[in-house]
């Protein structure tokens, strides 16, 4: 009786862990030359288009006027010099108002009563109907000097938004609602204690409500404090296919103040009237900013705004933003989507899927490994593409002497990393769709219709914004919100439309929409991959 020893291979058992699966999928990806070329192409196309856009910017000193368009605001600054004052937060701001001021040394407060705020379009006859734009502002302000863009805190009545406390251009808190009138005056108070300025309002001068308190870092011991009046442009927007137009009508506002009382040390003996203007100010004909004082009653007229400038071709801020450099993202996205679709469909076309599933029968894990490999590769390609586009284009545009919307570095980082994340998740989305439909044409069709077309329709002005905003809310293209260069401000009226870089969803909310669609697609794909014969 001989015992037969069963054959046993001398080779070591291969492990079938997830690491091996990842390695296998990575090998498949990196050994197909066309796919690697596709990823490199995505970087080159996105970066190249960014450089092209940067290269084509015009210096801030030359202003174009096209037919029917009032064009960007004329900048008085010399070529290459920054054309906009920057606020304490580094954002470009408008700092133009009529200021009736005195220095305030150390702590103290100022209280006034506002009894009237009226407005008009300068240049029109006295008989024209008075117009108060909703964000005409009149009130009291404490400001770090009269330098353009210096920090401040202010209490004000507005044309249509009640009492507000505003500070450092971007801060805004509501106070008492309603419009100011002789019958319904508004009392305002600002009080300084160290770096903290507190605002109060009242309807009768006896019952006071605290509206807000803000800490202004680095406030000097002596600030300029007093009355101010300003009134922003009344803008009307219209758009046709391929172009948008804006009509900016400067407005002026006049306010009447009385019951001015002060506490603290006010070393000057009289009030000084100043019209603070920035380099972006336009000359307005037919009205004179100024003030006159009769028996404790101040009548002040001013025009302009104390507010952040808004980016975009139709707005008063710099027309070009970092987001414009990344408009080529969609072309890079198409290249990555083509690779991601083929990463799955090539398995079916060549019959490789049977070998893959024989080697690793856990189908869900195969899908996960593929998603990780294509997502990581797309993230790296997206990061290289976005970084190249932004950094190179910024360099080229600076060489051109053009003024570009300045970004704080966290925003720039979010835009670059967000673009990479957008491309990575879109690649996984494409992979999941390709797993479901198994044909590259159908997969690409779905990705094009859901991501690329909504973006393409929203990028140039002309398509009604209500439609493109809806598309950018519900489709996976919502993730392009990650590229939004600047926040929307409730307190500034402007053209907040997708073609100017303003998306209907917040950056990470938009990204979550894409992630949600991708998760749904992955679950369906995993289900179908397990249930169907390969």
């Amino acid at each position, binding site marked *: 009786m001989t015992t037969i020893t069963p054959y046993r291979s001398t080779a070591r058992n291969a492990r079938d862990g997830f690491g091996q699966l990842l390695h296998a999928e990575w090998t498949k990806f990196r050994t197909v030359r066309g796919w690697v070329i596709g990823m490199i192409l995505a970087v080159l196309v996105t970066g190249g288009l960014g450089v092209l856009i940067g290269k084509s910017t015009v210096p801030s000193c030359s202003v*174009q006027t*096209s037919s029917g368009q009032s064009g960007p605001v004329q900048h008085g600054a010399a070529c290459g010099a920054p054309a906009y004052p920057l606020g304490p937060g580094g954002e470009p701001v408008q700092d133009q108002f009529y200021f009736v001021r005195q220095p305030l040394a150390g702590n103290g407060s100022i209280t006034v009563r506002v009894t009237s705020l009226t407005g008009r379009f300068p240049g029109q006859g006295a008989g024209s109907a008075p117009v108060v734009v909703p964000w005409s502002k009149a009130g009291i302000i404490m400001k770090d000097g009269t330098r353009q863009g210096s920090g401040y805190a202010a209490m004000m009545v507005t044309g249509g938004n009640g009492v507000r406390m505003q500070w450092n251009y971007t801060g805004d808190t509501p106070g008492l609602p309603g419009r100011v009138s002789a019958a319904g005056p508004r009392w305002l108070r600002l009080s300084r204690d160290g770096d903290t300025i507190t605002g109060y309002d009242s309807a009768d001068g006896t019952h006071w409500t605290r509206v807000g308190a803000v800490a202004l870092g680095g406030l000097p011991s002596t600030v300029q404090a007093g009355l101010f009046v300003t009134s922003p442009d009344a803008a009307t927007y219209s758009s046709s296919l391929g172009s948008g137009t804006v009509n900016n009508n400067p407005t002026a506002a006049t306010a009447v103040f009385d019951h001015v009382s002060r506490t603290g040390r006010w070393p000057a003996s009289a009030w000084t009237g100043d019209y603070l203007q920035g380099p972006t100010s336009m000359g307005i004909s037919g009205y004179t900013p100024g003030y006159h004082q009769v028996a404790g009653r101040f009548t002040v007229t001013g025009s302009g705004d104390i507010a952040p400038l808004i980016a975009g071709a139709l707005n008063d801020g710099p027309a070009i933003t970092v987001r414009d450099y990344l408009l080529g993202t969609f072309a890079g996205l198409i290249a990555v989507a083509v690779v991601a679709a083929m990463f799955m469909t090539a398995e079916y076309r060549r019959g490789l899927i049977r070998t893959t599933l024989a080697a690793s029968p856990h189908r869900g894990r195969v899908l996960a490994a593929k998603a990780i490999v294509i997502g990581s590769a797309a993230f790296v390609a997206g990061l290289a593409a976005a970084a190249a586009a932004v950094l190179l284009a910024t360099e080229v545009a600076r060489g051109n002497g053009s003024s570009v919307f300045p970004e704080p570095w966290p925003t720039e980082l979010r835009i670059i990393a967000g673009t990479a994340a957008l491309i990575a998740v879109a690649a996984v989305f494409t992979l999941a769709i390709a797993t479901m439909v198994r044909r590259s044409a159908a997969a690409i069709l779905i990705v094009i219709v859901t991501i690329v*077309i909504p973006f393409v329709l929203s990028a140039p002005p002309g398509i009604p914004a209500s439609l493109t905003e809806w598309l950018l809310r519900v489709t996976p293209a919502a993730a392009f919100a990650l590229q939004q260069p600047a926040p929307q401000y409730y307190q500034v009226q402007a053209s907040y439309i997708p073609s100017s870089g303003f998306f209907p969803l917040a950056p990470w909310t938009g990204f979550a929409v894409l992630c949600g669609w991708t998760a749904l697609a992955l679950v369906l794909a995993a289900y179908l991959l397990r249930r169907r014969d390969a």
Partner: protein
Amino acid sequence: MNAPAAGLTAVGPGQARYGRETLHAEWTKLRTVASTGWLLLAAAALTIGVSAAVDAAAACPASGCQADPAKLSLTGVQAGQAIVVIIAVLAVSNEYSTGMIRITLAAMPRRLAVLAAKATLIAGLVLTVSAVAVLACVLAGRLILPGHGFTAAHGYLLLSLSRGPDLRAACGSVLYLALIALLSLGVATAVRETAVAIGLVLGLLYVFPVVTSAISNQHWQRHLEQIGPMTAGLYIQATASLRSLPLTPWQGLGVLALWAAGALTLGGLVFRFRDA
């Protein structure tokens, strides 16, 4: 390889009949693939749907607007063309992905005749379907736009194919879609891979309008718009302020025709001289 084919044609069908049979064979292939019908339907639906949505979202307030109603109600062409691209690409690349191309070329060794037959059929199909879609878009514009402020009071007449510019915009859009199909066919013949061809054509089409929207240098902007197949081709939809266009509408469509001719030539050359 050429010798037996030449021998066969000597005793086989004549020139005209050969062409007809190539056409018939290609038609059978196109007709019997389920995706062709569905995609044509989807192209029409997307064109009409997007156009109607844009009509419904447009507004011409009493203060006036500068919109071009013909262009507005034909916006869907910009979306529908994506599916036209896919139809045309699949007509070629499907043969490569299934290996059918070897049978096709064994049966019909004259490769340029095969390509010509495909081009004729695809152009014909797209012309027919897009004519229906564009008519529906014009109809939608007639029905929807007057309710959104595009009335005679604001200086807008009802869209009508009896007026020269509107007729040009409508017919031109139909031709535009057919030329897009031919451009895609040429690219697909050159690259053979479905996904790559679709990506290339759509990238080429959409990159010009997106990039020119951000370019503030008007000199560059005009030049890029003039050479882009989509930007130039869509000038045909303009009915207002033609003087501000960098090219006349028909010149614009001509630019697209040049792109299509170039792509078909490239595809034809590659097809003729490369192994299948």
